[in-house]
């Protein structure tokens, strides 16, 4: 049983946490949240150059350092804690994973090293206007012309789609669902930033008009690979959510210790103390949910991963939102202000809840996968 973290993993957590405390503090988060691009290329280069975070779990043969998902999960947990702004989730949890999962050795060799080195910002464009995260939701079409593949249609709610250098696009072809790669400068690509409730993670709408693209993997066979990508991303997002919830609890506890009402710290009242205790119970349970997914991924067990991923998204989504809301409650009036960071976590929680599909969607996935 190695369901515990090793000393190296504890060390990784420490390093990432102190790095993010320095470069993704509240001031940085607010600056990037207010910036329409929401991306700091200097920070991005540091993440890659100093810590190798973009390529952490990318196999060495593609330019990464070949660590496991438990390690990557630690980074996501810390990124969630620090409310890291920028295209880390889009690039690492979505795009890199999609490339790793579709059977196309050449595409992997061409595209992954750029991601791992921090040179390429990438994302996965899957959802369309109806916001569905299933195969039926994919309407954008790809056709093979004499000159190669072309895309026509619209993708929206694409995480960091406004700035990604590389877009992996799920499209419908005569054979079924296929995955295609598009460069940011491709002709016939029109990108619009979408103003988001959660300003710490940006989204874009992409319009494709006969946009040339490169087929990744075999035509018509992308859905199973995309499903596995979504499962992996679900687990990583769950880790991020658990980390965000932990930070919200830390803030609540800090405040409950110092805020005095009726002559004593509010944290000595059971109404507040018990609320904080319940937050911790949920957070530890959310960690279990996320870690189970990470272990399943490292064990290479696909059935188990699919189940654990749906479970983790259901539970961690609801937990983060609840805990972030309770943090506002513990803070009273001050928690309701723009100046206080509590709302940043609450909004991140609420948007993460639907980022890869709602808790209801994941509950249903879980039910189906369990044969219920």
């Amino acid at each position: 049983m190695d369901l515990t973290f090793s000393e190296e993993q504890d060390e990784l957590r420490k390093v990432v946490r102190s790095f993010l405390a320095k470069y993704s503090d509240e001031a940085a988060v607010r600056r990037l949240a207010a910036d329409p691009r929401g991306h700091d290329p200097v920070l991005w280069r540091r993440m890659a150059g100093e810590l190798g975070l973009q390529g952490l779990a990318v196999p060495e043969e593609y330019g990464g350092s070949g660590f496991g998902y438990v390690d990557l999960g630690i980074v996501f947990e810390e990124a969630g804690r620090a409310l890291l702004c920028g295209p880390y989730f889009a690039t690492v949890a979505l795009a890199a994973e999609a490339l790793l999962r579709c059977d196309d050795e050449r595409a992997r060799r061409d595209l992954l090293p750029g991601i791992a080195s921090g040179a390429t910002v990438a994302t996965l464009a899957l959802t369309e206007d109806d916001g569905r995260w299933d195969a039926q939701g994919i309407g954008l079409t790809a056709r093979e012309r004499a000159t190669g593949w072309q895309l026509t249609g619209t993708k929206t709610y694409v995480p960091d789609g406004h700035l990604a250098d590389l877009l992996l696009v799920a499209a419908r072809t005569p054979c079924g669902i296929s995955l295609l790669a598009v460069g940011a400068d491709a002709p016939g690509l029109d990108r619009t930033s979408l103003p988001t409730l959660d300003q710490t993670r940006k989204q874009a709408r992409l319009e494709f008009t006969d946009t040339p693209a490169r087929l990744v993997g075999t035509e018509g066979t992308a859905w199973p690979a995309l499903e596995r990508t979504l499962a992996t991303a679900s687990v990583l997002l769950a880790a991020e959510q658990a980390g965000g919830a932990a930070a919200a609890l830390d803030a609540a506890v800090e405040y409950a210790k110092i805020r005095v009402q009726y002559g004593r710290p509010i944290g000595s009242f059971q109404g507040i103390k018990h609320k904080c205790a319940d937050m911790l119970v949920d957070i530890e349970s959310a960690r279990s949910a996320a870690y189970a997914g990470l272990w399943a991924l490292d064990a290479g067990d696909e059935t188990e991963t699919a189940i654990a991923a749906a479970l983790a998204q259901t539970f961690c989504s609801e937990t983060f939102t609840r805990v972030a809301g309770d943090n506002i409650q513990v803070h009273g009036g001050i928690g309701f202000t723009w100046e206080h960071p509590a709302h940043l976590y609450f909004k991140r929680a609420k948007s993460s809840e639907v980022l890869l599909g709602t808790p209801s969607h994941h509950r249903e996935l879980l039910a189906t996968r369990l044969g219920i």
Partner: protein
Amino acid sequence: MEVDFGPAVRDFRDELRDWLADHLVGEFAEHRGVGGPTDGAAWEVRLAWDRELSAGRWLGVAWPEEYGGRGLGLLEEIVFEYEYARANAPYRATVNALDLLGPMLLKMGTEEQKKRFLPPILAVEELWGQGFSEPGAGSDLASVRTRAERDGEEWVVSGQKVWTSFGIHADWLYVLTRTDPDSVRHKGLTLLLLPTDQPGVEIRPIRNLAGQDEFAEVFLSDARTHADMAVGEVGQGWRTAMATLGIERGTTLLPQQLGFEREAEALIDLARERGALDDPMLRRRIVDAWISVRIMRTTNLRTLAELTAGRTPGAQATTAKLYASTRHQQLGHLAMELAGPAGQIVGEDYGLDMRQRSFLLSLAETIYGGSSEIQRNIIGEQLLGLPKEPRP
């Protein structure tokens, strides 16, 4: 429900599986899943089953050989509990002495105490009850009033204990007493081992809400025990008692929750039979029940992994009880809802089926071993460092 604990313990596991397959038969097999500290009707069978386990040397797997144990490690003990739960073997009648008193003696007892008491525990020759709670000292255990005074080579003990599980069967009690009459709260307490077979001890059963004689009240009037029956230092009983409560929670939580998993699976089967899976509200609650038991499992495995790696368990080891007890009650409510009106009919003499019993008994899980409210205080104050409640 498969967890691989690695090659080192695979032989041990296989031996145990074979043994269980050979011995958990006949009458014993019929009592699979029978639970609760005292299931009156099944008591004799359960004792016989414990003796069967003892004969197979499966009790005290991690206890030193000199006291009758197998001298193996924590990992083997965990594997034992896991396989035991997997086989759905009857709830052990000796669980109190095995899980609480034994480990406490191993940690804090004198050599004489270990030699005297541990082998009979493993041989199922002496049964034990835990006498901590009193009518006025439940959550607030430090307000214990049962007094013990020295009289020559003996302690003389008077007071009242309550909610003593297995009390009516206990040959011995380990009781928390106040040995310094002028002391208050945590100070001046001593933990004493006390034989029940004497005039000063009266034990009356208390029926629980399921109709079972689960626990007892114990009246002590000038009951006597020998001077060297104090565990730990005289006056330091609080520390000894806390050590007992803190012992190896992880190893007992995992099997208990494997039982919950089994209930969740039975619930899904029942829902399928009833065609309830198409009802979106029920479907949602069923999936949530499944999520709960799966999370309990992972949380426990995290704790066990930390224990076996020699690490100090993290916060999840403490939060697990609150989560599990709350969620298990929800599971019970859902099971009863799915059972519908038929679930409301009991057998002769208030005879309960497994589902009814588990549901009703789950009401105690948020009370014993520290109520949910006390758990929240502990989590808030000890894990989160929030200021203590004002206390007199």
